[in-house]
């Protein structure tokens, strides 16, 4: 087994487990793009419903029947304009939205024949077509003289920045990382965004102008919120969730115990997937989208045994049924009712993990039993949730209301500070989806614009 790396790791961890061809196949599009003919046939299935339930189910309220009708009338670029005018990340959302719990779940075809119109793939067809055509349907608004600081270059921040630019406000985006895009660039599973889709979309978005981007600049490290509030007419906070939950187990610091989000980021940025170390036996702890993504990608990188262990039952998993199926068809095992007890080691490396069986207690709470089971593992992924780190807000934190550890905002995404708005994963009460972040950014921009217009 090839293992050129000098890093100390267990024997089960190796790079280059697969052939080049395998990597290509495993990390190309999960759902290949529709051909024109397929798009025509699929778009013909839309009933152009009145007050369409799919539109209500879309957090960004894309006029779905209209864009599908435009596709069927051979006007894919018009369809894309319909999509992007509501959701500037329409291309990403077409790829990463859990449509099975959003628009496609609401499609009336489900009632008729259990088979919704493939809205996500049609949306991709339209947005791909527009981006490939090089057309720019948006125009920056006439300069208003107002300046807005946007913190975080993820979907929330960039959606906000774009909408503000359309209204003519000058935007400066502060992004801690080297690249813009947030989790679109660092988090979404590689096979959902094959072919540089995330980067292409960000370039398209910025091309409208009026947005200055400052990468490598972090709030709390390089700038303070107080400074931004002094220098700009308004601030939008879209920093996502920079922290991760800990297992609280001994051995958590061993090299074989990895944070799933970090690993995925590394995978997304890897120039050469064969250089990425992969365990032979992988255990993933968690029950959400991140757990599924790290498990499936490990499998596709060549891991032999991958098991997701979730501490509760199947119905409590945050990952949708579709995603659970995806994991299983990729050969990932999902075990329920396993509560981590201790990490097992051998020669200073991870060798396995012991779980206690859980069960539903009398009051519905998780109850840990005395029974246990053990899984062998070279790599253990922690995918048990991310957290907002309020410390970056510095002394302004005092004036900002939090709720459940995240920023509290009102319907218009206003925080408790009059000139500060927030959205995306860093705010309370959201659904932690790309599409929800985009809607937050858009709503906040409209609210900021309205506030400027009224002042």
């Amino acid at each position: 087994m090839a293992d050129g790396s000098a890093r100390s790791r267990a024997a089960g961890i190796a790079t280059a487990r697969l052939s080049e061809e395998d990597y290509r196949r495993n990390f190309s599009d999960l759902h290949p793009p529709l051909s024109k003919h397929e798009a025509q046939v699929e778009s013909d299935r839309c009933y152009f419903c009145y007050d369409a339930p799919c539109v209500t189910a879309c957090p960004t309220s894309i006029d779905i029947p209209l864009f599908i009708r435009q596709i069927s009338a051979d006007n894919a670029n018009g369809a894309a304009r319909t999509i992007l005018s509501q959701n500037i990340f329409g291309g990403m959302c077409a790829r990463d939205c859990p449509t099975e719990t959003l628009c496609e779940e609401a499609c009336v075809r489900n009632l008729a024949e259990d088979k919704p119109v493939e809205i996500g793939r049609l949306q991709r067809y339209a947005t791909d077509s527009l981006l490939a055509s090089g057309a720019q349907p948006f125009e920056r608004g006439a300069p208003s003289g107002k300046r807005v600081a946007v913190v975080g270059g993820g979907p929330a921040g960039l959606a906000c920045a774009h909408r503000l630019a359309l209204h003519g406000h000058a935007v400066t985006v502060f992004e801690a990382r080297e690249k813009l895009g947030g989790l679109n660039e660092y988090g979404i599973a590689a096979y959902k965004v094959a072919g540089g889709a995330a980067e292409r979309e960000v370039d398209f978005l910025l091309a409208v102008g009026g947005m200055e981007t400052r990468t490598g600049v972090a709030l709390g490290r390089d700038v303070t919120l107080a400074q931004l509030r002094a220098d700009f007419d308004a601030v939008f906070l879209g920093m996502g969730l920079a922290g991760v939950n800990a297992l609280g187990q001994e051995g958590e610091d061993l090299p074989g115990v990895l944070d799933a989000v970090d690993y995925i980021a590394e995978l997304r940025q890897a120039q050469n997937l064969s250089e990425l170390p992969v365990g032979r036996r992988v255990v993933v702890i968690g029950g959400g989208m991140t757990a599924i993504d790290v498990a499936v990608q490990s499998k596709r990188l060549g891991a032999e045994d991958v098991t997701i262990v979730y501490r509760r039952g199947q119905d409590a998993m945050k990952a949708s049924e579709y995603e659970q199926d995806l994991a299983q068809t990729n050969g990932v095992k999902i075990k329920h009712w396993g509560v981590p007890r201790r990490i097992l080691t051998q020669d200073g490396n991870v060798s396995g993990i012991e779980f206690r069986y859980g069960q539903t207690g009398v009051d519905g709470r998780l109850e840990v039993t005395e029974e246990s089971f053990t899984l062998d593992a070279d790599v253990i992924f922690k995918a048990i949730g991310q957290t907002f780190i309020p410390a970056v807000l510095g002394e302004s934190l005092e004036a900002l209301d939090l709720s459940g550890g995240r920023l509290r905002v009102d319907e218009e995404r206003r925080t408790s500070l009059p000139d500060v708005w927030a959205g995306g994963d860093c705010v309370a009460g959201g659904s932690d989806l790309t599409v929800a972040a985009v809607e937050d950014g858009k709503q906040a921009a409209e609210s900021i614009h309205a506030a400027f217009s009224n002042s």
Partner: protein
Amino acid sequence: MADLRSEFLGIKSPNPFWLASAPPTDREINVTRAFKAGWGGVVWKTLGEDPPVVNVNGPRYGAVYSADRRLMGFNNIELISDRPLEINLREIKQVKRDWPDRAMVVSLMVPCEEAAWKKILPLVEETGADGVELNFGCPHGMSERGMGSAVGQVPEYVEMVARWCKQHTRMPVIVKLTPNITDVRHPARAARAGGADAVSLINTVNSIVSVDLDLMAPNPHTDGKGTHGGYCGPAVKPMALNMVAEIARDPATQGFPISGIGGVTTWRDAAEFMALGASNVQVCTAAMTYGFKIVEELTDGLKSWMEDKGYQRVDDIVGAAIPNVTDWQFLNLNYVVKARIDQDLCIKCGRCHIVCEDTSHQAITAEKDGHRHFEVIDAECVGCNLCVSVCPVENCITMERMTEGVDPRTGTPIDPAYANWTTHPNNPQAAE
């Protein structure tokens, strides 16, 4: 940026999409909803004399579907407006006042007597409407009473009524033609001769959509009996396109403004009508199938296409295809094409083979070296396009022109010069 604004007989509308005279334009509430949705204009549901007509209380509509229940053809036995004239006029006046930038044309059908037209025209004029459309097309019910298509089928009547109307009103007069006639150019010429300002076409086509084989009655039926109705929707578009083109290229009616109607469902349909000479289009069935919101697709689609093609104004498209519509006798007989099957795209269904084998020229193979394989035999192919028409894969079979060499079917060398039937040696009337 393409400009969709349209002007037809001096009547301005923000786009060339009008709703045709029919239920969508029957009353204030509908028309107001239509204007809110973005329609450029309406032709109000046909008004007649009081007392108003009475509609059946049984079903009025029948439909022809695709396998997926997409409505392809639509049929109706509805009459003209069944509401009192005074109410219609009041509503028309109100809507025109509320929506001054939209076209408001009023459709009329009264008996074939001058007094009847003389009486109703000033009443319409008083509403502030932009024009009138004479309904000479309704093929059911009204025709039995000597109106509608009963007038439209007699060019002399068309001319006569058009003349009366021009005498008794200053409003532009549009004559709406029936397709239930052998040669649509005759009533169009008559309309022009009578002084009308334009024609609109088509009204609905006489039809029985289907038969209920249990009741042994045509659909739709009322109390066990049915009658023929008027057919419209996507299915009638090809007939409507031809009729529009015939009028547009007839020297007797050249330049006579046309409003195109019949199956317009998407922007492309509209562009096709306009390319063949219609200055604007009217829509009924598509709105009745999907609601008024479709106008968003129509306007955006037409605009996008115009921008792609570099057309600035709607008038730039009007009649653009007319120079290329000709008579059969002028088609180039030296133009030789052969079908070509793209083997990479071919899914090997064999439909091209069997239709050519059974019903055309035995010009497509079914196998090669013992394998299923479909390939054109140039020595047999007449270039008829049947295989293309039946192939389920777009662009799999194409027609390619032979520009040199010998046509293996006829053994004749390819002649790059143009030559048509008028000079062909087989033509008994060939000019020397």
